[in-house]
């Protein structure tokens, strides 16, 4: 049986499979399974049973999310599926692999998702810089339309679906699902208040599901090979495989499909090839820039949502950023703060005015002009930018590496102030 359903067709030494090649590798089988007599309720139940959780970062159960879409007589007729392909989380490049390597998998998954919520129109909101993915997706969509996997009355089910690829003008905040919807509507990419959730009032005020690329790519396997197969993929408490990535000074940084629940140590050493010679692992962010630092003492923890949460961080995108002992942690955090401050949409006060202050302080620290007062202000901002304070999750995401970093690298911060320069630059 297939053990790497997300990447089984991906071979970066060649282009992606064309539709014939994709079909011969069990491609579009799930749609044929549906066409044989599954209705949207059946598919929803299978997705719920699979235990699939959203791969965008929050890890919310996908089936549950879909079940909030109003259905039945009183529900709005028009619904939308939106795929969040605006991959901009620092250190994250997993969706790119999927879209560049096997675009048909995403399209097949989208048909399943759209069928389940009965959305006749779907959008792929694609990061503007992903030009290779854009080309691959557009080509694959044309192929799928020609074969009748998209368009009117797909495989005789009576279900219609059009997919539009929308390339983003480029803001990190567009990865926030409601800001993404505003951007897609041509409005300023500010997040929206929740409730109402997009499942009730989303794109153009209609019920909308926004899912991450990787989440959607899990669907064809679940329908084609079944829930039991899916449950057999995992080593831990969460189900399915997941793309994990490593960036930073390991020997072989990259992105791999692995079962959930592997020990972190195994991933870093087996797949990342261990630290580069002469460098020690100092700490790491387990799931992109918006997660709390973890330490070498956590290396034996299993990589799944719950285990990572137990030590106060988040699996999030599953793409680790490694900090070694020769790189300045203050500089690393400062770099992240510069990013988050720049990407704040400017809607709510703590994020809009708090993050730039934090960013400025990091620049002062770097230049050797930092003070104890600045450090105090940084500490205050950890709480001020935290969950529940701001309008969306951007600032709390930024507060995660900041807060954990201030604790873990306390001495490094103090040395920047007492030594009036960055000690790593000597």
């Amino acid at each position, binding site marked *: 049986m297939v053990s790497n359903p997300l990447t089984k067709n991906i071979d970066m030494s060649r282009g992606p499979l064309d539709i014939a090649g994709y079909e011969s590798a069990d491609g579009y089988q799930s749609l044929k399974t549906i066409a044989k007599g599954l209705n949207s309720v059946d598919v929803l139940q299978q997705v719920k049973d699979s235990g699939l959780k959203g791969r965008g970062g929050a890890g919310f159960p996908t089936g549950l999310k879909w079940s909030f879409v109003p259905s039945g007589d009183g529900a709005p007729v028009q619904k939308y599926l939106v795929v969040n392909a605006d991959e901009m989380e620092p250190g994250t490049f997993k969706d790119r692999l999927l879209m560049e390597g096997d675009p048909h998998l995403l399209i097949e998954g989208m048909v399943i998702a759209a069928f389940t919520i009965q959305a006749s129109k779907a959008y792929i909101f694609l990061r503007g810089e992903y030009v290779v993915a854009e080309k691959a997706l557009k080509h694959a969509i044309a192929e799928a339309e020609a074969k009748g996997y998209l368009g009117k009355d797909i495989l005789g089910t009576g279900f219609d679906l059009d997919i539009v690829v929308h390339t983003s003008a480029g803001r990190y905040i567009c990865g926030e699902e409601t800001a993404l919807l505003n951007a897609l509507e041509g409005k300023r990419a500010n997040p929206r*208040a929740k409730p109402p959730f997009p499942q009730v009032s989303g794109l153009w005020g209609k019920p909308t599901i926004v899912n991450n690329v990787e989440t959607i790519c899990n669907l064809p396997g679940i329908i084609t090979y079944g829930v039991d197969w899916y449950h057999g993929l995992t080593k831990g408490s969460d189900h399915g495989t997941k793309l994990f990535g490593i960036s930073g000074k390991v020997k072989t940084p990259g992105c791999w499909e692995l079962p959930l629940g592997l020990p972190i140590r195994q991933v870093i050493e087996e797949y990342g090839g261990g630290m580069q010679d002469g460098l020690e692992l100092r700490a790491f962010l387990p799931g992109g820039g918006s997660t709390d630092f973890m330490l070498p003492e956590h290396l034996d923890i299993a990589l799944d949502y719950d285990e990572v949460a137990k030590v106060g961080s988040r699996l999030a995108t599953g793409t680790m950023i490694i900090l070694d002992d020769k790189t300045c942690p203050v500089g690393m955090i400062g770099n992240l703060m510069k990013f988050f401050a720049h990407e704040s949409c*400017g809607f709510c006060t703590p994020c*809009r005015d708090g993050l730039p202050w934090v960013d400025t*302080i990091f620049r002062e620290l770097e230049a050797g002009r930092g003070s104890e007062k600045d450090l105090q202000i940084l500490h205050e901002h950890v709480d001020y930018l935290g969950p529940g304070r701001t309008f969306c999750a951007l600032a709390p995401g930024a507060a995660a590496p900041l807060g954990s970093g201030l604790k873990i690298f306390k001495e490094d911060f103090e040395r920047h102030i007492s030594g009036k320069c960055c000690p790593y630059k000597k």
Partner: protein
Amino acid sequence: MAKIVIDGVDYEVNPDNNLLQECLSQGLDLPYFCWHPCMGSVGACRQCAVIQYRDEDDDKGMLVMACMTPPTDGMIISIEDEQAKSFRSNVIESLMISHPHDCPVCEEGGECHLQDMTLMSGHNYRRYDKEKVTHRNQYLGPFIGHEMNRCITCYRCVRYYDDYAGGTDLSAQASHHHVYFGRHEEGVLESEFSGNLVEVCPTGVFTDRTFSENYTRKWDLQTAPSICTGCAVGCNTTPGERYGTLRRITNRYNSDVNGYFLCDRGRFGYGYSSSDQRFADPLQRKNETAEIMDDSAVQSMLDGFSSENTSVTTIGIGSPRASTEANYALRCLVGADNFFSGMSDEEFESANLILQLNKDKAFHSPSIREIEQADAILIVGEDVTNTAPRIALALRQSVRNKAMELADQSRIPRWQDAAVRELAQHDRSPLSILSGYKTRLDDVADDEIIDSIPRLASFAQAIAGSLSGKAEQIQVEDGQVAAVEKIAEQLKSAKRPLVIAGSSQGAELIKAAANIARALGESRADGAIDLCLLTPEVNSMGMAMLSTEENSLGAALEKLRSGEASKVVIVENDLYRRAPHGLVDEALEKAEQCLVIDQLPTATTAKADFVLPCTAFAEQESSYINYEGRAQLSFQVHRNHARAKSSWQWLSAATEEGIESLMHDCADAVPGLAKLCEILPDKSQFVGGMKVPRQSHRYSGRTAMKSHLGVHEPKQAVDSQSVMSFSMEGISSQKDASILASSWSPQWNSNQSISKFQSEVNGELKQGHTGKLVMERNAEGAYLEVSVSEDSSAELQLSRAHQIFGSDELSSRSSVIKQRMVGSYLGISEEDARSKRIRQGDSIAIVGVEASLSACIRSSIKNGSAVIYCDETMDSHSLPRSINISKSNNEVQTGIKGLIISDLMDEDN
């Protein structure tokens, strides 16, 4: 109601509102910025954070934004919790990071919501020591100043300007701490309601340029409750005066009328009252020169006009822009039979029709608050944005009732502003507009029928016919049948339908509108139908009620021309704006003696034998009756230091008593005005004769104000005629909020303090009234016959256009309004223009009429019809109903530059 606990105290609150609004309604102090009482919540500023506890055992609680939290039964809240206070002080600290702290030179200083909230939130020490963000400011036109560095990014301006007022040229730009609120490029802010930005902005980003140029601190302004004289809506205002001149006008909250907002004509059109052209002295014309008259000469001259003292007939011509008292005093002087209308004959016919319909019990004349409740609206021929602007702003809220309905269905609270807008998108309650041209409301209109006036009358009557078999049935052309049926159905199925018409296109459209409303009422058991009938001027209704139907202006001019009357007193009126110039010339030349009482020189005062200077609206106490029949009292703000008196003071013997006895006489004498005196303040509230001060308790420099003229300190002026005093002494209005000029409350120095005076947020002012509806509706009316005949004697059927800046006589004499005015223009279709080889902006001549107009080629206008806008120089009442035109070689003076309409064709057409 929900029972909640705030800091250990039990409260009963409305669960349909958000927690912040309910806290304010309870009189609690909770700081906020982005929330606005009538714009709901978006949760941007995070300033109103409070702690919510799960239950009584929860001692930690969770931080929530009050504005985004619905109160639920049993909820436990703390405003005073240290964690909440600390978060709020962090928020204000970061809001103030780049604020320039230029309070000493900021127009907002002393009435700044940001200043108040900064103190209230506990930020008094500046820790931020890095570089500030700075912005470039923009030129936004003659009304609004822009100082972006003061911005705290609360998003209120764009939420007001774009979302609430339907503007399209102000936006939030850039992101993070560089967010910028401005236009895409420098230029005049297009919205007719841009002035409200000044009050919506919690600090000094958007400022009133007319005020900046004559700046005075809020507490140094002498103020009184006033009524805007710009149109028939009668918005409540607070003019502020210092050193004898008006410095600005701000909104005065009236829950039924204007709420929180004014139009730009009303806010910025006051400059004429400080014009150096104002008459200072009584004048007598002797040959070509005018001589100043002394008081005794004035008295004997006036005696000569009194009906008691002269055997020749004296007639009086009143004015719709003058107060009820001025018109009534004139009527007393000359006798009711000799009191004539000061409106044009066409308008007078419409006004009398409206008066009759306003007594009909089948209809209800809706207030602005009621207009906002309409869920299907039909406008019959009236361009409300230009004739009664505040109503256009209200209609933009009415069309959102559909959104509110959808929100209720989806259980999204109505105050969740952004969410409700997202949900509804372009789903609106139906607004249908019948007009000769595209109006400024077309972006929210469901249907627009653009046609000539007679054909619009047919269309409207066809709707009435479709609604009821009892109404006259009129055939429309096949292509319009579906539209007739659709609009009829929309009105019929609405919970609160509204029909709007007005006098600007003549009486036939009003009749058709009334027929529609009557037909709608037939099928409904739930009371009178909202029929909003608009007259153009502040007291059109009041003046019409004082004159008999026969006493038109035409009849007055004929009396003078024929010699039947030989003396005439004209009060606050320029007859050349009301009647064909030839007829006015003839009548005035024939008159033996002509007395004109007015503020500014006009073509009419130029012909007068005597001119008496009268006070401007803010220099007198007076009452006006608005389009609904709502009488409102406008108090005197400041004294006129020249010899001007209010018109009624010149004309009435009882000058020392104030308007009270005159109003009582008027109420007794004039049918329909019996309730007029109910707007007078209740004297029993004034303890020991203490008056309501016009000057704030911080008013400064009182003893030194005249020191540049002399070291002798003048005695404080005594106002024997009013319940208000020209001083700081007295007791501010305790029992009657309608004498509340500007609100102030400890810690609340800005206009936001109004919540302390409202029964609840957005509610009626405590212990006040919103004016009194004087009309008795007890008449049984019938369907009216509508004439739909076209005048096909010439090529182009005319309809009239009005301009918010220009059509109102007095405001258009303010220099700042002049900058926004356009010259006379003729709107024609592309094809008609082409056939005459006329290009955009060309000069046009009307055959047989002396006039020069600019061509205004508009894509919406039907071939064979035209819309004319006449500036004050045109002899507009001589125009026939249809005209022939040709291209002219005359140069147009002002042109149409700056005209804001959506369907103007490009110049190369």
